[in-house]
């Protein structure tokens, strides 16, 4: 049984370099084919403990030294094991394709390559086909169609997973963390999907290997691997709201080195859900993404890859300010920039050892300039710039055929400079982590991990996690995991120094509170100290414990089912609260660890191949959330509600609907059809979002009344695509075809229609 896969990494290394043509006639030459009879050019053959050997471009095997057992494997295919005698007799070896997504390889779950079916935690992999069938251009458009994920609109398109907000979801690009959050939200619209190879979605905390932010889960965006041969692809997409998205992809192969260049431009007029007011719901903006990936082999044991990405976004719009009697129109200009540099060095001195040295350096900045339209005088000017650097050494050691040990250590530095912060603020942190993957028996596999984080501002934190899988039968396996998650207090919570001049309140980060209050006292502005900043104590990390458990069942050749149940217990959630009352009657605020929240639910995904041409899949998510403090107050009879007739009554536990912006029920149904007459692929998806708490209406700030819910709705999405013989790719389709307006979701523009084309220019010339 070959299950733990350090060796797959070699496979990647081989893929990096074009495979040399194997010369010389070889009597033992076999050919490795898929079920349709096409050669699998990336298959590997391994005899006993000898290094695995790749086949050539035609699927032909190299000459092998004799042994006892021969393993033939390829990504996405069922591994075959033959005895030497069987091998000698065989002319061709046919590998069966793994069904559904189970054969997909996941790197982010264990930081080593393992296929989905071997992972003891819930994982979804979206490959390029699934990305393409959504017709999406930005990452949010892909993720919103997945079971259990929601996109919420709060300072950008933020992801919600297992009932937790964007703040608690780590976003990785090729395994490296992305930075740049506004009010905690990572705006998924910043990520263009045109050159994404696949997306891995891990649910449940992964702080045991990733540290802070990996509390609800991790989304790893994997950019396309270097091409096998040179190419120039031009693509163009056009959409409703005068949206244009041209892109260019250039792949160059030279000896052992490949270079991929990617350019993407996005321009839209935006949209307006409330034409009666000045300004649009989404302002016109344009964004350019540039990516370069260079990778190659320095020596057979040493490979290098360099990745660079730049993102530049500009938007402008209008906003009405002031009172209705004296309206003032403001012009807004916003700019956002993001640069990432990520070199990775891989050294494999021995079959059982792999060293990976990687670094990620990022710069993120925003600038917003609002002015009075009439006078051009400045109304508000804010800038924010953040620097992030991380370097890390990971060592993988294959202890034995069924044990793989991973050790990591790293250092990170973060700095922020902004209008709302004093001086230059800097964090330093270090961490070590260890992970053990172990298959104690044929039916059991375990992954356990522990990570220690040391931070200059908030101290240290240990995050353990253990997960296991039991194969009940060949087709049915059960998974369970228990893990800790945390989110470190961010710059805002620690170091913000903000004064809202208009309404006269102050907000101090926890470390500045004491100093800030004493300054206000010197100025004679403090009327009363509500909480002595000296007694506040240090702001602690937000922490969670989570359990995830479920099963994967391959019902038969054509149908499969995945189920996962989860519960997250989150403590020490950080909130603002007043610490001093000012003579003006306003307050000064700071940040505290106060709330405890529970999110729990169930996620089910099923796929069935109805015929050769027709595939049906469906997903359902049940979500239940609550704020423990609110529940306690309700139970103590301290919360009231008032109706339109001014009748007041106590809020009961049954009234309480949990956290805002969470749908108790959500799901999707997707149909994929391959129309053979025209050779087009059709994909019809219905995405349901159940009713969710939108805003407090009755003044008690909690979700406890029917009027506080936004209606559920269905987004009907359709894509059709066709690849012509000469490689030209065409697509057309639409999202939200029923044109359902959802004022509670400002990120939904209504119906969007699109057309797209991709031209493989180099192919066409040749």
């Amino acid at each position, binding site marked *: 049984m070959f299950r733990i896969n350090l060796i797959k990494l070699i496979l990647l290394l081989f893929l990096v370099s074009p495979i040399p043509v194997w010369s010389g006639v070889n009597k033992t030459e076999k050919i490795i084919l898929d079920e349709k009879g096409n050669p699998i050019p990336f298959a590997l053959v391994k005899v006993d403990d000898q290094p695995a050997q790749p086949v050539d471009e035609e699927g032909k095997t190299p000459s092998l030294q004799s042994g006892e057992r021969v393993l033939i494997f390829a990504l996405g295919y069922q591994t075959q094991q033959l005895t030497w005698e069987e091998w000698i007799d065989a002319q061709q070896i046919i590998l069966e394709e793994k069904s559904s997504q189970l054969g997909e390889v996941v790197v982010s779950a264990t930081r080593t390559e393992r296929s989905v079916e071997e992972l003891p935690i819930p994982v979804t992999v979206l490959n390029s086909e699934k990305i393409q069938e959504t017709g999406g251009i930005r990452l949010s458009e892909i993720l919103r169609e997945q079971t259990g994920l929601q996109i919420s609109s709060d300072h950008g398109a933020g992801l919600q997973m297992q009932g937790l907000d964007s703040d608690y979801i780590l976003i990785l690009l090729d395994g490296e963390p992305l930075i740049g959050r506004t009010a905690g939200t990572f705006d998924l619209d910043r990520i263009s999907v045109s050159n994404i190879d696949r997306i891995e979605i891990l649910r449940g905390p992964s702080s045991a290997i990733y540290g802070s932010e990996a509390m609800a889960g991790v989304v790893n965006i994997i950019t396309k691997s270097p091409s096998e041969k040179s190419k120039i692809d031009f693509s163009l997409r056009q959409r409703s709201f005068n949206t244009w998205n041209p892109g260019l992809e250039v792949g160059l192969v030279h000896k052992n080195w490949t270079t991929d260049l990617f350019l993407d431009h996005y321009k839209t007029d935006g949209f307006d859900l409330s034409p009666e007011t000045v300004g649009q719901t989404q302002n016109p903006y344009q964004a350019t993404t540039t990516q370069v990936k260079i990778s190659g082999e320095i020596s057979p044991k040493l490979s290098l890859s360099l990745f660079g990405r730049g993102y530049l976004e500009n938007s402008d719009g209008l906003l009405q300010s002031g009172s209705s009697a004296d309206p003032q129109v403001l012009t807004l200009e916003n700019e956002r920039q993001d640069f990432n540099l990520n070199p990775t060095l891989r050294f494999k001195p021995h079959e059982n050892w792999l060293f990976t040295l990687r670094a990620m350096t990022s710069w993120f900045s925003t600038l917003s300039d609002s002015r009075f339209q009439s006078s051009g005088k400045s109304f508000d000017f804010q800038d924010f710039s953040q620097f992030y650097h991380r370097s890390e050494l990971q060592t993988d050691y294959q202890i034995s055929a069924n044990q793989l040990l991973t050790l990591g250590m790293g250092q990170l530095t973060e700095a922020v400079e902004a209008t709302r912060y004093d001086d230059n603020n800097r964090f330093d942190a270090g961490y070590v982590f260890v992970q053990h993957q172990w298959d104690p028996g044929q039916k059991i596999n375990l992954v356990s991990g522990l990570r220690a984080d040391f931070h200059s501002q908030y101290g240290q934190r240990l995050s353990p996690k253990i997960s296991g899988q039991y194969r009940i039968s060949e087709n049915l396996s059960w998974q369970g995991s228990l893990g800790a998650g945390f989110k470190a207090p961010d710059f805002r919570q620690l170091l913000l120094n903000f004064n809202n001049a208009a309404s006269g309140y102050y907000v101090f980060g926890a470390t500045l509170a004491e100093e800030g209050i004493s300054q206000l006292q010197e100025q004679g502005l403090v009327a009363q100290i509500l909480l002595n900043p000296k007694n506040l104590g240090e702001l602690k990390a937000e922490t969670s414990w989570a359990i995830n458990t479920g099963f994967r069942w391959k019902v038969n050749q054509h149908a499969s089912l995945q189920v996962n149940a989860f519960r997250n217990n989150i403590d020490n959630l950080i909130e603002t609260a007043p610490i001093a009352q000012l003579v003006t009657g306003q*307050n000064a605020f700071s940040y505290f660890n106060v709330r405890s929240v529970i999110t729990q639910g169930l996620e089910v995904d099923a796929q069935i191949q109805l015929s050769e041409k027709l595939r049906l899949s469906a997903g359902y998510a049940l979500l239940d959330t609550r704020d423990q403090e609110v529940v306690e107050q309700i139970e103590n009879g301290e919360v009231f509600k008032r109706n339109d007739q001014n009748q007041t009554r106590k809020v009961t536990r049954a009234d309480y609907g949990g956290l805002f912006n969470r749908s108790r029920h959500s799901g999707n149904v997707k149909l994929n059809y391959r129309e053979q007459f025209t050779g087009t692929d059709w994909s019809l998806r219905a995405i349901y979002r159940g009713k969710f708490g939108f805003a407090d209406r009755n003044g008690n700030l909690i979700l406890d009344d029917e009027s506080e819910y936004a209606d559920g709705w269905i987004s009907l999405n359709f894509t059709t695509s066709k690849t012509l013989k000469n490689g030209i790719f065409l697509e057309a389709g639409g999202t939200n075809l029923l044109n359902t307006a959802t004022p509670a979701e400002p990120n939904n523009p209504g119906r969007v229609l699109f057309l797209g084309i991709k031209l493989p220019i180099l192919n066409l010339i040749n």
Partner: protein
Amino acid sequence: MKTIHNLFLSTAFAFLLFACQSNSNPDPVVPLAATLVEDLAAPNDNIDRTTGEIIEERPFQFFSLEQNSLVAENEDWDLAFKGTTIRVNSEKNVQAAVVSGIFEEITEVPANATFATDTETSFAIPTGSGNGWYNYNSSTFTVTPIPGRVLLVQTTEGNYSKIEILSYYQGNPPVEEIDPRTTPSGYYTFRYLLQPNGSTSF
């Protein structure tokens, strides 16, 4: 202020309550009337949103619970309103407490209610969202009275009254209709009940 008028809000429930008590109590009981005050205009200072400077300072509006009308600052006022701030007349030793409960069900000044008057550094009715009579909803930018918050005030005459604030916006509109940018704010609608005999029961 548009109108101030009386409402006889003696609910059947209250009647039953008093009826029960009157069996054991020989004193005749006069049902107390709750008074509804609508659109008491007390807008906040006009503040420049860029600099925070006060462009136009506006006066407090002084209200007498005893007279059920606005009065001058030098008269016997109990409460003074401006923006979301409510002062009590500390010179006349007006005291106030904030309690939780249902207006009709508060038939007695609770023993644990802590009465205080305004000082240089503190308000008897605390300001700030969630502290006193209102919540500020930062997602909808609206000020809403906290349901179940009742203000108890001992007036200039020493009588107890209970007050429930119902709206902060002109015309007491349903919350869905409030647009914080256009709906005029600083317009108080509240109801109160005054026990003129000096006792602590309502």
